[in-house]
């Protein structure tokens, strides 16, 4: 047993002796390899190892949280300090006991042998990604290749002692055919062998090569084809806004919208923590509740908020198994595929835009859902179903509910996306949406 496991068990006992209950201790041991590259060469390779404890417990119906990565902490002293803080608090809105039920969980998926060798393999893969990209008209590439293996153990005062192994391989790649002609694509998987870096290189390079001779975009309302990159970002924000915690803080445009139509009936978003190829594969949430596949938005209807035990009690419902130590969140986001083939969906646009990517999505007001986001890495004018002209300088300035309701079609293949702007692994298609507002700086 490792040092931090021993410390965690000591802390559990020390807290119990002092009257704490409903104690959850999550121990994570992470190995993380990150290769950053730019200007066609590696800028820095990073290797991090980390052990970390996240803790939650109740004391006289007050919940306290703690985050410890100091592996030499003194369990007795730490428990005293925590109880001292908890004893100063008199009330919390909702207190909930953690369960002791014996659940059935999906099996632990071990990390395959190739993925265990991330520190050896990733530098070479990064080199391949760079070299493959430079074979055509691409002059410059930049990106990040990351591999992470996380071993998790959760112990509780109610008798759980659960283990899980999670892993992530993520590639984010940007190609430049000149200083402002860019294309970008990202990918995520659970295993090194599932990383389709050729697809990433091809997609990013293809866009960068046609993203030339740009003209300034005319502001106005357009029909739009979203690529999986930007649609993943937009759908990740939508799924995150279904967290009951966001709803109760007034940071969601889904307040009061449960079981109502929030999107076009073409849109179904679901979460699948049991997908064995997803970095989000998880047996249990941070409250030891089994994870499960679930629809969040079904045919345009918001069918559930995402809950932990506390928000479920407050909202008078059951937990959805989405607990983090503090608040509920989706493990991953899947856009249910539509019927269109990728070539066909463009034919639905007489005059409109193809949008590749975005960044800097900000809300004017989370409750109303008014937002804007900068378009990047390819804005193209579509005429009669064909890409005619590369454009620059656009911003999608919209209302989220309007955006969700404007979706008219989805393609039949999903892409696994995760990068800077998409924190949660999101499986996204191309999407067709009508009449969206594009603005530009004067």
């Amino acid at each position, binding site marked *: 047993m490792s040092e931090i496991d021993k410390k965690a068990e000591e802390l559990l006992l020390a807290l119990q002796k002092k009257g704490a209950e409903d104690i959850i201790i999550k121990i994570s041991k992470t190995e993380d390899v*990150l*290769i*950053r590259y*730019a*200007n066609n060469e*590696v*800028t*820095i*390779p*990073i290797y*991090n*190892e*980390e*052990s*970390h404890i996240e803790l939650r417990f109740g004391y006289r119906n007050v*919940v*306290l*949280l703690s*985050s410890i*990565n*100091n592996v*030499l*902490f003194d369990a007795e002293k730490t428990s005293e*300090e925590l109880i001292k*803080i908890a004893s*100063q*608090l008199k*009330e*919390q*809105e909702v207190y909930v006991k953690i369960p002791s039920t014996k659940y059935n969980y999906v099996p632990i998926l071990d990390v395959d042998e190739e993925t265990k060798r991330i*520190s050896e393999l990733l*530098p*070479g893969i990064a080199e391949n990604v760079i070299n493959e990209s430079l074979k055509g008209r691409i002059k*410059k590439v*930049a990106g*990040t290749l*990351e591999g992470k293996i996380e071993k998790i153990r959760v112990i509780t005062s109610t008798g759980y002692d659960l283990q899980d192994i999670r892993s992530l391989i993520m590639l984010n790649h940007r190609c430049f055919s000149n*200083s*402002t002609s860019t294309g*970008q694509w990202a990918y995520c998987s659970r295993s090194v062998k599932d990383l389709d870096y050729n697809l990433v290189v091809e997609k990013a390079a293809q866009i960068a090569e046609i993203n030339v001779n740009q003209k300034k975009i005319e502001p106005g309302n357009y029909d739009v084809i979203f690529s999986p990159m930007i649609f993943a970002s937009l759908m990740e924000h939508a799924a995150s806004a279904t967290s009951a915690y966001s709803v109760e*803080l*007034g940071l969601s445009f889904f307040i009061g919208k449960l079981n109502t139509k929030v999107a076009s009936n073409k849109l179904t978003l679901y979460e699948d923590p049991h997908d064995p190829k997803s970095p989000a594969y998880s047996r249990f949430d941070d409250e030891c509740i089994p994870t499960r596949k679930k629809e969040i938005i079904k045919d345009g209807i918001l069918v559930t908020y995402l809950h932990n035990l506390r928000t479920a009690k407050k909202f008078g419902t059951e937990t959805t198994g989405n607990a983090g130590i503090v608040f509920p969140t989706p493990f991953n986001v899947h856009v249910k595929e539509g019927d269109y083939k990728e070539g066909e969906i463009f034919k639905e646009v007489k005059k409109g835009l193809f949008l590749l990517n975005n*960044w*800097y*999505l*900000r809300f*004017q*007001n989370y*409750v*109303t859902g*008014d937002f*804007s986001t*900068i378009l990047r890495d390819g804005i193209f004018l579509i005429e009669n179903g064909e890409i005619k002209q590369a454009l620059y*300088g656009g*911003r999608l300035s919209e209302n989220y509910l309007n955006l969700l309701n404007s979706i008219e079609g989805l393609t039949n293949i999903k892409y696994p996306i995760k990068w*800077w702007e998409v924190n949660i692994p999101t499986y996204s298609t191309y999407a067709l949406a009508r009449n969206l507002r594009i*603005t*530009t*700086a*004067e």
Partner: protein
Amino acid sequence: MEEELRSVIDYGLSQGAKYVEARYQLLTGNFLSMKNGIVDNVGNYNIRGVGIRVIFENSIGFSSTNIINKENLISTCNKAIKIAKAAKKRTVKFDSWRDYRDTCIVKPKIEYRSIEDIVNEFKEYDKRIVENENRTVFRVFFISKTEEEKLFINSEGSVIEQKWPIISLFASLVAVDHQKGFVQRFLQDGGKKGWEIIHEIEYEEKLKSEAKMLGKILNEAETLKEKGEYDVIIDGEITGLISHESCGHPFEADRILGREAAQGGESYLNLNMLNKEKIGSEILSIADDPTIEKASGFYVYDDEGVPARKRYLIKNGVPTEVLLNREYAGYLSTKSNSAARATYYYNEPLIRMANTYIEPRDFTVEEMIEDVKKGIYLKSYMEWNIDDRRWNQKYTGLECYLIENGKIKQMVKNVALEITTGHLFKNIDAIGKDLKFTPGNCGKGEPMQGIPVWFGGPTIRVRKVWIK
């Protein structure tokens, strides 16, 4: 700790590394969040570890650990060397600095209160908000106190210890009127100081005034009838953000030279423009200064052991200096200007802003308004974003007024200033003397490193701006 870190340096050098540095960091603190006057989350944290960076055979490598003993630190140093060897990289050469031995400690004037006292204090603030605007239905506070200790040692002989307290205050207020809609306000305050901040910023008065303002916006703000060209007067809350987004970020050398191209992007600025090309009005000067004591971006030495100094990014409309770390200073055959910072021990130091601000001049706000026939006065904002070359930006106003013939008239809502950096900087014709700073958390890098900064600016006037 110095002895353990010294062993890393000695070991790295013995293995043939040209340069070795070890950064120890300890962060301890408490946090509390409250929702509508009721405690939501309370907790503490204790983060401790060492980041090791090496230059080995002209390649750089970084590794970190939170198991701090000599054996494991040496193993971590080995991992940094091994990964530097595995990933081929262009030749890295740092600029040259002498060794520094220093200890810098900031002590709070007023110690952080007990959690119980803070809960009681913020319950009162919550009541004051409701008393001043009872339609404020969502009220969220997040309060944190951190003690940060850092020890930096490198193979050139530097040993630098820095310690400070960090207070962070965040509030989110949403006021709802069933006829008039929703209005939302986020407030961020903080610095490397103690609980005295609550008095210095007159927090209770600030919250009362913000609540009243939300009510006023709900009651009085009307949609701007006529879109078009206006003269715009912009408060320091927004000009501070402009100094950060439109000057600070594009003046980071790593961004200019493409290192951040896949994430944060590049820059409209190139190095040939320095001291040559005018990019702003004659009266526009922007500085970044880590030596402003007790500011969120305050430090005495950066995370590469370089002594902090003020940087003039733009002087009288002309770009004069970019932000540098040792690697890019070496690459450009110059000296670092102390802009390297890492959020946590497990992050590589990157080129970061500290406290960026537009330098004040001599106008009063009244003088600026007097000379406007048709204008908009933006006092606060709700939403902003900017493209990845830092040229095309948008600020959507929260508290905004129409100006007609030198007088403030109707309050207006959803006014969007969507403008290029070039147009904005070149059309500034008046800068106020009312410099103010607002704390923020600047994001950059992979993995994302959020780092505390201050944004600073006085009120400015910009002529001929297209308002939507």
